[in-house]
């Protein structure tokens, strides 16, 4: 490693082609954007609880501010937090380690992917400060609102937002090509398709779903950008265009995107619960095949977002059926996880707490989705806070809970040190309890009919229901409490980077190949390239002295 030591800071950490450095770049950028997205949520929640009052650290929230805050909170949390952390960050860091190779197949393409992603991050942040402010047409960017500055009042913000999203797609397209090719072509000798850890499979399936769904949205985004900048009329009904067309192109990507981030989160949970219950993953093949089924069905559910958009009612029935069908494979995976836990020697370390919380909280999100997927109930609940609460009960477990499960689980591997367990548990409970107090009230508000886009009831006094304001305040207070507890995590994370207890190679006694490499792994990962002899989940095998059986040990 003498050669690596001589490299300058720039070539080692900024322009590196090493998959681990690129993974950490994605991870840290994603965590930073998570702070930005949280701050935006804090500002608009304060406005909803205390309308018109100046928000500390921000000031008075105008209607245009409010729209920009909501829009960019959604876009940032999905495209700049969930995607970079779950797929690009963890995928880059872990895939070569878990399949036993030294790097990605296309290292320079990988570096380009992060550079484009970094550029997209700069563009989205700049778009918040241009004249007119950030884009405020919601993360779904429906035209005609998004297509004309005459309606959205953000002549700079809207195109910049769209360009940032498009750049982000290019970055993840390059990443996805790399992930799939690497897993297909660079696995350690002996690692057959059924010996690949579930997390790796999930990133591969997610990448394929992403690549197959993103094309139509890029096409739609180009048309929207032309409508904004060149004055074309693709989505303008006055000139023969079709605004519903955008909704189809957007949701053809937008709904599979949900599963693009969900599948890696499920993969993280699978890795963590097997290690901390010392049991073989229940029904590996079933989980794998249901993940493929989820990926395929996810292409046939998109119009359930458009039940009130004037689509043909017969089509709405079809999409109701496909939407209810897609809950079957997800439920199957949840049952497989519970069966894995059943009878295991469960050890409630911090990563395990997060993984268990994922199963519990995601269940709430999944069950409430049934009401929104059925067209009859959706017509009432559409665009209410019930929808907001539902998708936060899916996305928060996906991006935040599974993200923390992964960070706390792989932290010893990434940085060679342990995080503090007590602080980890304080942070866990300080996040999970307030989380439920934010979004359970929103279910009630939504069921009571509160519309999700109302900035202040001063202008809609006939819609104002006095008893509901307490619930809004409760949600906001819970959010502030939850955000304050994140400082516990930040303190723990930064302190552990430098002063945490040293971690050995395999602190959790896990089977997968990344735990064979030194902690942190050097350039090239393994001292000797491993050979694989068995599947990744051989825990508590009868007749063996140890309760784990790493993949690389010969029989």
């Amino acid at each position, binding site marked *: 490693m003498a050669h690596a030591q001589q490299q300058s800071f720039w070539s080692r950490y900024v322009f590196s082609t090493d998959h681990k450095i690129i993974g950490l770049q994605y991870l840290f950028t994603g965590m930073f954007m998570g702070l930005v997205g949280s701050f935006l949520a804090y500002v608009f929640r304060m406005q909803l609880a205390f309308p018109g009052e100046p928000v500390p650290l921000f000031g008075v929230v105008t209607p245009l501010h409010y729209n920009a805050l909501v829009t960019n909170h959604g876009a940032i949390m999905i495209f700049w937090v969930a995607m970079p952390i779950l797929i690009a960050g963890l995928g880059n860091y872990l895939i070569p380690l878990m399949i036993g190779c030294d790097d990605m197949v296309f290292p320079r393409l990988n570096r380009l992917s992060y550079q484009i992603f970094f550029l997209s991050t700069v563009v989205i942040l700049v778009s918040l400060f241009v004249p007119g402010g950030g884009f405020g047409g919601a993360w779904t960017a429906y035209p005609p609102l998004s297509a004309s500055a005459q309606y959205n009042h953000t002549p700079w913000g809207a195109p910049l937002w769209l360009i940032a999203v498009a750049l982000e797609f290019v970055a993840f*397209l390059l990443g996805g090509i790399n992930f799939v090719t690497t897993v*297909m*072509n*660079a696995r350690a*000798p002996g690692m057959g398709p059924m010996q690949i850890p579930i997390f790796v499979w999930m990133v591969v399936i997610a990448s394929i779903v992403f*690549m197959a769904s993103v*094309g139509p949205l890029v096409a739609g985004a180009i048309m929207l950008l032309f409508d904004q900048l060149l004055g074309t009329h693709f989505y303008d009904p006055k000139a023969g265009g*079709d605004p519903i067309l955008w909704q189809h*192109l957007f949701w053809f990507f937008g709904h599979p995107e949900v599963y693009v981030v969900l599948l890696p989160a499920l993969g993280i949970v699978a890795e963590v619960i097997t290690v901390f219950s010392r049991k073989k993953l229940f029904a590996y093949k079933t989980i794998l095949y249901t993940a493929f089924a989820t990926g395929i069905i996810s292409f046939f559910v998109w119009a359930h977002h458009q039940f009130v958009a004037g689509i043909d009612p017969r089509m709405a029935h079809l999409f109701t059926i496909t939407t209810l069908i897609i809950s079957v494979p997800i439920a199957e995976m949840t049952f497989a996880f519970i069966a894995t836990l059943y009878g295991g020697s469960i050890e409630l370390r911090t990563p395990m707490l997060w993984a268990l919380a994922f199963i519990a909280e995601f269940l709430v999100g999944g069950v409430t989705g049934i009401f929104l997927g059925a067209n009859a109930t959706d017509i009432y609940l559409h665009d209410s806070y019930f929808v907001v609460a539902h998708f936060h009960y899916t996305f928060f477990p996906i991006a935040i809970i599974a993200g923390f499960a992964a960070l706390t689980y792989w932290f010893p591997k990434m940085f060679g040190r342990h995080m503090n367990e007590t602080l980890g548990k304080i942070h866990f409970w300080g996040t999970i309890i307030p989380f439920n107090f934010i979004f359970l009230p929103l279910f009630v508000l939504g069921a009571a009919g509160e519309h999700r886009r109302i900035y202040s009831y001063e202008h809609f006094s006939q819609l104002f229901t006095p008893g509901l304001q307490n619930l809004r305040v409760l949600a906001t207070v819970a959010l502030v409490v939850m955000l304050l507890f994140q400082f516990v995590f930040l303190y723990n994370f930064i302190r552990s980077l430098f002063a945490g207890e040293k971690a050995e190679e395999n602190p959790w006694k896990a089977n997968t190949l990344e735990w064979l490499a030194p902690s942190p792994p050097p350039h090239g990962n393994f001292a000797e390239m491993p050979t694989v002899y068995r599947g990744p989940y051989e825990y508590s095998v009868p007749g063996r002295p140890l309760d784990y059986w790493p993949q690389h040990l010969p029989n």
Partner: protein
Amino acid sequence: MVASTDRQRGSLGIPSAVLGMVLFLATEVMFFAGLVSAFLVVKARWIGAWPPPGQPRLPVEVTAVNTVVLLASGVILWLAAHDRAGQQTLAAVRRRSLIAALLGATFVTVQGFEWTRLLAYGLTMRSGPYGSFFYLIVGTHAAHAVAAVVALLWAVARLGSQKISADGFRAVRLFWYFVVGVWPILYVLVYLM
């Protein structure tokens, strides 16, 4: 695209450069499918005659000839790479690839010339969905064709100095075949239907 270490081909037996290009082209197919489906949806909802009266007509005949030029470039590139007798020298491969690139460049030039004429007749991106979709779809293809010409010229140069692997050259050819193969579909949809 030459991999830094020796990579095995994996269970699929497809070299990494080719597999990466295939995945990219799958995304491209979905991208063009998005453009075409948007076009078909707007056209299906159009009230009245299509193409709209008073709008310039597209140059069907010239473009038909141009289509043949592009298809010929694909055939020549295929011949450059598939030599059954094994007699072909590297110089011959490069010469045939260069001819393919020049035919591709001819296609783009003729397209550009026709565009300037259409613009002069008043067909612009703002003159309604007919013009918008024409320039969008045909323009997207033209951008791909330019990229393919650049990539093929780059590959021809690299073939001379032996700096491109056989798999890398195959990946570039696959991109070329995609640009050639998607064009007749777009021609029928945009010009003829």
